[in-house]
């Protein structure tokens, strides 16, 4: 079943992307894909990298406070709060953000109502910023969950010792906690990166116009032009981007092994 539903389609993707009309081997589809969608490719890489970094930072901040926070009530509230988007599907996230970030959405109403911005300065965030916000909102809880789990299984005596020696909480987080959970953080971030790379619904609902993400272009090539060749060339490019992320991760992991 894995063979039929994963390996076969991938092989087909590779074959179709390189096959010319007469059955020969060609790079024409890649040239066409690059020609038409160069901006979107860069845009895709930019959005996913930026989102991944932001997700990592948010996850470190929340998980760090959950582990080192001294106010038990605040920790309990935060623990209850942060998980909600985890349970919400991408497609619903798309719709939720589409309404929330629009020019007449709740975000702008609240900003205007609290006097933070001028009514005339209200603008729609439904472009690349909307996609990044939706991704971070949806994926950060997932990485936080993994990270908080890893942090909870650290040796408490270590933290105690460092605390007694006068380390601040920020020092504790940066010097003792984070180095030990770096592997978990990387896994969470790489998984999020790959997931975001292949989400179609969020970019389609928040910003379907160019420049957008290549998943939208792939859907467009197929639904409008039945152009499987260029679509598959784009697919292989997204696989390459994912492979790049995996390679960076593996290099990190092996470097850690070597130094350990």
């Amino acid at each position, binding site marked *: *079943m*894995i063979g039929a*539903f*994963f390996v*076969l*389609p*991938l092989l*087909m*993707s590779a074959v*179709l992307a390189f096959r010319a009309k007469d059955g020969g081997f060609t790079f024409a589809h890649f040239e066409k894909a690059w020609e038409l969608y160069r901006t979107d490719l860069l845009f895709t890489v930019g959005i996913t990298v930026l989102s991944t970094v932001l997700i990592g930072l948010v996850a470190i901040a929340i998980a760090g406070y959950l582990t080192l926070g001294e*106010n038990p009530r*605040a920790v309990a*509230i*935060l623990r209850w*709060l*942060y998980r*909600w*988007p*985890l*349970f*919400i*599907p*991408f*497609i*619903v996230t798309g*719709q*939720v*953000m*589409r*309404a*929330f970030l629009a*020019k*007449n*959405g*709740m*975000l702008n109403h*609240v900003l205007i*109502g609290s006097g933070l911005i001028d*009514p005339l300065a209200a603008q729609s965030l439904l472009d690349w910023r909307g996609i990044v916000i939706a991704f971070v*909102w949806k994926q950060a809880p997932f990485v936080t969950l993994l990270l908080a789990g890893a942090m909870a299984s650290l040796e408490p005596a270590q933290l105690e010792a460092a605390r007694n020696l006068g380390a601040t909480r920020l020092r504790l987080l940066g010097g003792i906690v984070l180095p030990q959970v770096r592997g978990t953080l990387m896994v969470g971030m790489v*998984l999020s990166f*790959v997931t975001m790379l*292949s989400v*179609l*619904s969020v970019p*389609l*609902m928040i910003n379907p116009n160019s420049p957008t993400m290549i*998943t939208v272009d*792939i*859907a467009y090539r*197929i639904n409008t032009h039945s152009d*499987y060749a260029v*679509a*598959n060339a784009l*697919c*292989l490019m*997204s*696989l390459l981007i*994912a492979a790049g992320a*995996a390679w960076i991760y593996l290099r990190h992991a092996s470097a850690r092994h070597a130094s350990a």
Partner: protein
Amino acid sequence: MTTMSIRTRWPQALGMAVLLGLFAFAIFGPLANLFLWAFAEKWYFPHKLPQEFGFSFWARVFSPRGGALTSLWTSIGIALLTVVVSLAVAIPAGYALARLKLRWRGLILFAFLLPQAIPNIPIYVNIARIFYEIGLNGTIIGVVLVHAAHGLVLAVWIASAAFAAVDISLEEASRNMGATPWLCFRTVTLPLAAPGLIASAIFVFLESLDEFTGTYFVGVPDVTTLPLLMFNASMGGNYQIASITALLLLIPSIAFMFVVERFLKADVLAGVGR
């Protein structure tokens, strides 16, 4: 001394409250907005809140022409079939991976993880093409197969961990008392692994219920699941109908997650991926 410490803690506590408030707004603000849209009759710019609340859009969604009920049943039917197909593969596969000394165990588990680690879009695109050629595009079976292929990844991993958590000496005791392997599996192993298996069934069910991309490519034009209905309404600019459908999709997700926390015990979670 104590008054000093209280005084120095005040601004800190206030700052914490403000931060938590902002965070709560970041999490629930978007959801509140969805909720308002679902019950709005009229809501034009620049009004901050809907001018009229009401249920007329709910009536429209649930009327026979609204299509929500049909899509809801389609979605639930597909999700149930997906669970059946996934578990039919995951139970024997998970048991074999947990109990038998398979030579390529690591490799097999890795193969089941692979689909999680690569972008899904190339897969859906080409499955759609294959299905189109053999006439499975736009059929319920086609969509179920796509969902099951994806759900299997989770199901096999969780099932294998659930079986591994069952104490093997209990099985041996029942075999020593003369139980056949099948009787032993049915009356000892399966009930003990049931919580983990139910959890994996719930995960597969939810994945299928919320799945969009695969259905978008394989299901068109005849299979309209709830996520597709929501997408079409939203793209058509009808935020009320899109929000109502989104709420319908949220209810099972959030409800099941509370149930899952009870079923998925820590010892099973710890065994995942071992």
